[in-house]
């Protein structure tokens, strides 16, 4: 059951990442590219967590990847909401 949920989550992360990648392709807004990369990282860390389930020493590394993905998303949102200098 645990592996089923983990696999579903990994697939959902990957699908969301692909959607964000499509949004970036259509709009060239870097927020979507960063989101795509972050969700790709989250999919990878979910797979890593399942693959390393029996290895206690390596347990922290997927969570470091997760943290980096969340930090990327926070940075992307803050970057998007940054006040822009008026042009002209």
């Amino acid at each position, binding site marked *: *059951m645990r592996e089923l949920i983990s696999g579903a989550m990994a697939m959902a992360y990957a*699908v*969301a990442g692909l*959607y964000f990648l499509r949004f970036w392709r259509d709009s060239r807004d870097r927020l979507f590219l960063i989101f795509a990369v972050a969700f790709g990282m989250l999919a990878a860390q979910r797979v890593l967590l399942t693959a390393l389930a029996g290895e206690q020493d390596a347990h*922290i590394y997927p*969570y470091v990847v997760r943290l980096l993905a*969340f*930090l990327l998303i*926070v940075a992307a949102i803050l970057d998007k909401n940054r006040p822009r200098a008026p042009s002209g």
Partner: protein
Amino acid sequence: MATVVYALCALTSIACAVLLLRGYASSGVRLLLWAGLCFVGLALNNVLLFVDMRVVPEVDLSAWRSLPALAGLLLLVYGLVWETR
């Protein structure tokens, strides 16, 4: 080190949820709502991770903490599929 990582995962996922839901509140863009709700689920998952690993390590909450994350992700995928063109 692990405690710091678990705590920061919880805090950053909460920050993501807050920023996205605030963005939805100010702009009304529904994708922000679905993404915000996703991160509410992920934030719950990460708070439960911290509780599971550091507060009550003798109890295995791994199955329970995955459920809010999965629910959040399903909401995001629904929003992406149904609300976007």
